[in-house]
């Protein structure tokens, strides 16, 4: 089964072969490295840029406006904060020109903690991204969604931000998450599309004939159905929420886990249905907790579902401090941990463990 990063690579390959992708570019995205996480190895249209995030976002806009179909990468979202103005600009091109122009570009960037990345390789970007009107924003939590969301992003006529949870990049797909056309044996897949160590000058990937699969932007997924409490989350926190639900199942608590997959547009119907069912909801993400996207979800929940709630909705998110520290204890204290998620769920259902 493909890993998340292999799924991204396969989608980029399908994008350049069948869906008009003209450029996959960013710092160290081209040969020989193929991206600091190997996501762009062996791609026909991948190239290296100068070390200049403003140039990368700017070039993507210029390429898009000139009818190309760029997929640009910011090496780590931690380094995207000098180009927020350009992202605002991209998000406003269709609107400010009253529909004269559209700006079809994909901006990919790895997000989140979990790899002991210290201050500048642990940032989340969901809070910042959801403050950019005019952008669609997706964030997969497994290889199949990674593949299907990226293809949908590529064919979308609007700017789409593609956030990759870096701690999940090497996570393998579950049995029900096979990409149509990928080889059964994942060793085989690695042999075909992972660049060898050492000299790669002669290496060529051997692409499996994977099929189109579009995960619609704006559709969430109920990863686990449950009756007692809902956990609405995305990205790296999805497996954490599922593990917590597993734990609680043993205690007779039946938790529902919703993976949003798209942050904008938002699948409100899915959230609403879940809250109406369980009457208790925990919103979970690892971004800093002040002016956090989860607070938007809390706000909308109290505005629209106040009288459905049997307990105050909760948000569990990252500590509002300047960075995620490197030492184990510091990183753990900065972003939600399994035990915290589980106890927040328990509190919501009123079981004090």
């Amino acid at each position: 089964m493909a890993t998340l990063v292999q799924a991204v690579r396969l989608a980029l390959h399908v994008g350049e072969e069948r869906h008009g992708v003209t450029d996959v570019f960013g710092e160290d995205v081209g040969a020989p490295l193929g991206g600091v996480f190997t996501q762009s190895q062996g791609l026909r249209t991948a190239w290296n840029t100068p070390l200049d995030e403003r140039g990368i976002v700017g070039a993507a806009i210029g390429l898009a406006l000139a009818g190309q179909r760029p997929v640009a990468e910011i090496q780590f979202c931690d380094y995207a904060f000098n180009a927020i103005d350009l992202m605002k600009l991209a998000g406003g091109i269709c609107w400010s020109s009253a529909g004269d122009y559209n700006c079809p570009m994909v901006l990919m960037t790895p997000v989140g903690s979990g790899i002991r990345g210290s201050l500048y390789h642990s940032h989340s970007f969901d809070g910042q991204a959801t403050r950019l009107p005019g952008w669609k924003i997706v964030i997969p939590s497994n290889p199949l969604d990674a593949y299907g969301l990226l293809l949908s992003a590529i064919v979308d006529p609007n700017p789409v931000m593609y956030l990759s949870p870096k701690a999940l990049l090497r996570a393998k797909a579950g049995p029900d998450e096979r990409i149509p056309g990928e080889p059964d044996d994942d060793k085989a897949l690695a042999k075909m599309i992972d660049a060898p160590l050492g000299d790669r000058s002669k290496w060529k990937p051997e692409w499996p004939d994977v099929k189109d699969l579009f995960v619609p932007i704006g559709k969430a997924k109920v990863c686990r159905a449950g009756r007692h409490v809902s956990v609405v989350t995305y990205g790296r926190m999805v497996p954490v929420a599922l593990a917590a639900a597993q734990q609680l199942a043993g205690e007779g608590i039946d938790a529902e886990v919703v993976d949003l997959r798209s942050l904008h547009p938002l699948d409100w119907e899915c959230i609403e249905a879940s809250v109406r069912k369980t009457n208790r909801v925990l919103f979970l993400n690892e971004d800093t907790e002040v002016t956090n996207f989860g607070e938007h979800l809390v706000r909308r929940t109290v505005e629209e579902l106040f009288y459905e709630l049997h307990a105050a909705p909760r948000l569990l998110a990252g500590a509002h401090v300047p960075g995620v520290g490197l030492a184990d204890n510091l990183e753990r204290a900065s972003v939600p941990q399994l035990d915290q998620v589980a106890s927040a769920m328990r509190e919501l259902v009123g079981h004090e463990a």
Partner: protein
Amino acid sequence: MTTTIAHDSAPAEANDAALAPELLVRMHELMVRARCLEERLIRMNKQGDGYFWIGGPGEEAFNVPLGLLVQKGQGPQFDYLHLHYRSSATLLAMGADPVDALRQMKSTASDPYSAGRNFCNHYSVRKWNVVPVSSPIEVQFSMAPGSAMANKRAGGKGITIVQGGDAGTAEGDFATCLVWCSRPGNELPCLMIVTNNLWGISTPAGQQHGEKHVADRGRAFGIKTAVIDGNDPENAYRELKKAMDYVRTERKPFLLEAMVSRLYGHSSASGANLVSEEADCLPAFEKKLEERKILTRVAIDELRARTTQELLEASKRVREEPQPQGADIWKHVFADVDLVGSAHGSNGRS
């Protein structure tokens, strides 16, 4: 003869060839139209028919030739323009209807550039590859390399033209454009233009810029440069043609700095009154045309009067056009179809 203030290569012979009288008359007519349009926009603003004015009176001698030399069309076979908010004369020279500028000033729903959303002189014309002009200074210099890559790939002669002011070159985006357009083996067909009026709002260039010429910054990157007098339309035409020919044929960048005037100050925020100290390209050019018997004073005055009158009447009609409605803010947040890609299925877009 041609006034080049500084040049990498000696001015080519061809350069000094006089321009055809028809072209001079055409340039003059467009300069007059552009000037009258800006004067009308300023009036509208002062009369309360628009909240803000910013524009290009004083840059006509440079911007008109620029517009005439553009290879106009949609898609990467043609020129892409990333313009400044002082480029009205370029738009008119390309054939834009001046009334549309009045509409944007009055924020009418009929404003084709932004439907009443943006300030005046913030154009967007997809059919001519004029990308939306935005207020943030210098961002167009970060975007230009992108369209220039598309031009280069498309083969053909299309180039990218990006224009901004002098003060704005202090933003990192200007350096970004120099770096990205000169990557070894990936040089881009991009004509970078700095229209230098020696001001950034209230701040004189000499106070903030240690460069003898802004254009000198191209040298370290092996980018050809020129600094020219932008107040002489004949000179501007020749220098622009030379620079464009180089970019079109060599498929390499060129950095052109044109010294221009800021005739009505920065914007309505600073009063938008005529600044008598600034050189005015229009009377200077008209004097030449008279001396050379290409135009008579009478014809010139008549043209000016007629154009002024036409725009006055147009502004009255525009005043009656409907304003956008509140609910319109929700339109065009997202596009449903790919408009920019439609110009060429060539890249195998599904």
